[in-house]
């Protein structure tokens, strides 16, 4: 499913470019192909380098288990899992960047620096959003917060939810390294963030990383979709609604990617600050 989303994004971009584009499952094929290849490591690296991809994958998987799909409660949900949710990605980031630094390459160091720098701004935005949701749902568990209760939530604090959704969208774009923050398809190292970090990963390692990234996109997307499409009908219907929502999100991302240009690095923090302010303003609206 996550890789399928990537496929949709690709298709959308291709459509905008007036091309047919690769098949929807192309990313999946790529990953499978990569997994078959052999490994290659830099002489500089140590075990930290090998740990990078694994940790990012494992953490992403764990985060996925905390996410409710539609109105179905998540497999794992408890009071305060939202903190765990956020910090799992932190753990993943720690090791990805460490692995990048392990190669001792200037590019990858640069990428790592950008990654952690921008995450310093996305995290507060995320937590502002979570506070709003807590306030509206009165729960500290994701399954409750963005679970069945969303209907009333929109009823009470629709305005702030709009803001929250907007800011979460920016967070999503940043965390998953999409235009306008990052350009996953460019070939100029100096302009990359995520891609440049994994320059030295090859074969299965790279495949794992791609899959983990897609998973991250999926997970964050799921949260966003639940907020944006608070459909609370019969479980199966809601499942379908959720799936459609995810695709719509992918399309939306594709549209953004193909209509916007990448921002200059210096401007990115401003955009992220804007995201923080959006959700903070959301809080103010709820507080009133």
């Amino acid at each position, binding site marked *: 499913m996550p890789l399928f989303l990537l496929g949709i994004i690709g298709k959308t971009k291709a459509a905008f470019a007036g091309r047919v584009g690769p098949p929807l499952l192309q990313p999946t094929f790529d990953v499978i192909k990569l997994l078959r290849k052999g*490994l290659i490591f830099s*002489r500089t690296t140590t075990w930290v380098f090998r740990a990078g991809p694994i940790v990012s994958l494992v953490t992403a998987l764990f985060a996925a288990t905390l996410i409710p799909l539609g109105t179905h409660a998540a497999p794992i949900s408890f009071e305060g899992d939202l903190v765990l949710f956020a*910090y799992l990605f932190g753990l993943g980031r720690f090791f990805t960047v460490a692995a990048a630094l392990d*190669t*001792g*390459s*200037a590019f990858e160091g*640069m990428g790592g620096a950008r990654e952690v720098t921008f995450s310093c701004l996305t995290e507060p935005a995320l*937590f502002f959003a979570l*506070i709003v949701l807590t306030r509206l749902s009165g729960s500290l568990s994701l399954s409750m917060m963005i679970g069945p209760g969303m209907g009333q939530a929109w009823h009470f604090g629709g305005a702030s939810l709009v803001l929250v959704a907007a800011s979460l969208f920016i967070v999503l774009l940043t965390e998953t390294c999409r235009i306008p923050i990052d350009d996953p398809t460019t070939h100029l190292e100096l302009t990359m963030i995520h891609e440049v970090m994994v320059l030295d990963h090859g074969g299965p390692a790279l495949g794992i990383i791609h899959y983990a990234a897609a998973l991250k996109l999926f997970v964050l997307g799921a949260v966003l979709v639940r907020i944006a499409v608070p459909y609370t009908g019969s479980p199966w219907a809601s499942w379908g609604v959720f799936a459609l929502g995810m695709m719509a999100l992918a399309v939306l991302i594709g549209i953004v990617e193909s209509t916007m240009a990448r921002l200059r690095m210096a401007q990115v923090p401003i955009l992220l600050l804007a995201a923080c302010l959006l959700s903070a303003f959301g809080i103010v609206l709820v507080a009133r």
Partner: protein
Amino acid sequence: MNEWLVMTGAFLAAASGVPGLWTDRRGTRGERIFAALMVVASLCGLTGAALAVARGSHGLDLAWPVPGGRFAIRLDGIAALFVIQIFAIAGLGAIYGLGYWKQSEHPRDGRKLRLFYGLMTAGMALLVCARNTMLFMAGWEIMAAAAFLTVSTQDEQKSVRDVGYVYMAATRLATLCLFALFAVLFASTGTFDFAAARPITGGAATAILLLSIVAFGLKAGLMPMHVWLPGAHASAPSHVSALMSGVLIKMGIYGFVRTFSFFPHPPLWWGQLVLLLGVASGVLGVAFAIGQHDFKRLLAYHSVENIGIICMGLGVALIGRTLGSGALVALGLGGALLHTWNHGLFKGLLFLSAGSVLHSTGTREIDELGGLSKRMPWTALAFLVGAVAICGLPPLNGFVSELFVYLGLFETARLPQSDLWLTGALGAPALALIGALALACFVKAFGAMFLGEPRSHRTDASHEASPWLLGPMAILALLCAFIGLLPWLVTPVLDSAVATWAPELASSHARLTTLAPLSWVSFLAVSLAMLLAFAALMVRRHLHQRPAEQAGTWDCGYVAPGPTMQYSSSSFAQTLVGIFSWALRPKVHNPDTRGFFPHKDAYTSHVDDVVLDSVLIPAAEFGSRAAKRMKWLQRGSMQAYLLYILLTLIVLFLWR
């Protein structure tokens, strides 16, 4: 019984350095005796505290014939918690010292260091157990003076002397505020006994709050009052830094906890004030840390940050006590206290591993290091564990305590009062920001020190540390993992401490065990760890079947790649320092390298301590200049002197 054990431990610790004074200057007997005594002392203290937690303590109250003094000792929940921390870190540090500060390598100051190390431990144990203000003061000052003498161990270096002087001035200010605090306490309760502090209200209460914030904030290194901390932690020997950063500054936290426990109904703004101080300290502390190049200074600033987190927890607890909400109190105070423990553990671990790096490379400059994980893998692993823990990432202990604080903050966000929950609602994102910044900072530190290629020849001689150094590190790392994986084993201690702090809420069945999803956390942490281990095994097997080929790092086709091309710590932090430049005031040298043949130059940025270097030192200069101007009064002329007497007479007669 258990009080006696702890006091025996304190006494042994105090005496541990004494035999060494008469042993041979270069022999090892002195240090051996010292370490042995310290270990025994720690065991005594730990057993005593454990017994106190298990069976409770009915205190010890002996006559102490000094004005207002009683030798009153009690190991209640709070005290026991801190005693455990003191003796654990102190004992490990003493063992570490055997390898780190060998008498044979430091014949001049080794004995001095050990003597005052023991005294510092004893002083802390005493002040934590004391239930009488005089006894508290005694322990407090013994600790402070001994700490000064350990910090200025290498007093032949001017920098160390200056640092020691700043520390001493700061700690004396704290002590004098304590004088005032206890005087006010006496005036309003009529007793020197902590237990018998009857509810204080009005101006006295406010005075006590402000005085305690200055006094204990100075000791704890809360943001505006942290000036002494970075220098002291940087120049002290590393195991002393571990003890100071891990335990000594927590005495300030202990002071806060103890003082606030006197007030059953604190005004709301108390909690909010403490929370805000915590936020400021946390954010700015970590921001300053990112700008540092000296890895011990960097760690020191992280102490400021963690103290901030702890104070956020305290603030939540205070708010909870105002509202009579047991949940808030339990989560806030529990989080704060657990974080004091955790910070003791992982900061101790970090300082010890930093010490072994310093010991083998002889430099504290991050940008002179690199690639150490090949030469000293175990130290690298220890540092990595500490780094992950201090960033509050699962599955280690930092996450648990920060989770408690988060839960407390979110609880306030759930409260109906719309005016009140904003404080909490702003606290959570702040904590998130702190976490992210800490992550950035420690990725930078770990990466620049241990990963990549060596940046200078400092690392050529470096070697893995001796078992004396590695042993304590291993124990600390295991403890970090232990608390992270099985938190529900330590929560009873916290619960008893919370019950002692707010007895009136003890009835409301707010126990951390029920409030926090400990079972889930534990389950997930364990499974995460196991999954990672499993994956590691998979990789290992995969590599076994298909060995990976080796190649050079991708250099983008550049002809002459070299170690100096690596991202240095300052370049890594450049953007973040820029974002926070409004507070850090960095001194940036950004060379203009345009043109075809730009001259050789380098980008550098330095972040000094703003409060100390831009505010306090100028102020002190001004003061001493003013004093100098007054000195013409005493310029040696007898006639003038006699005139002063005459004038005094006239003034007094007129006054009458």
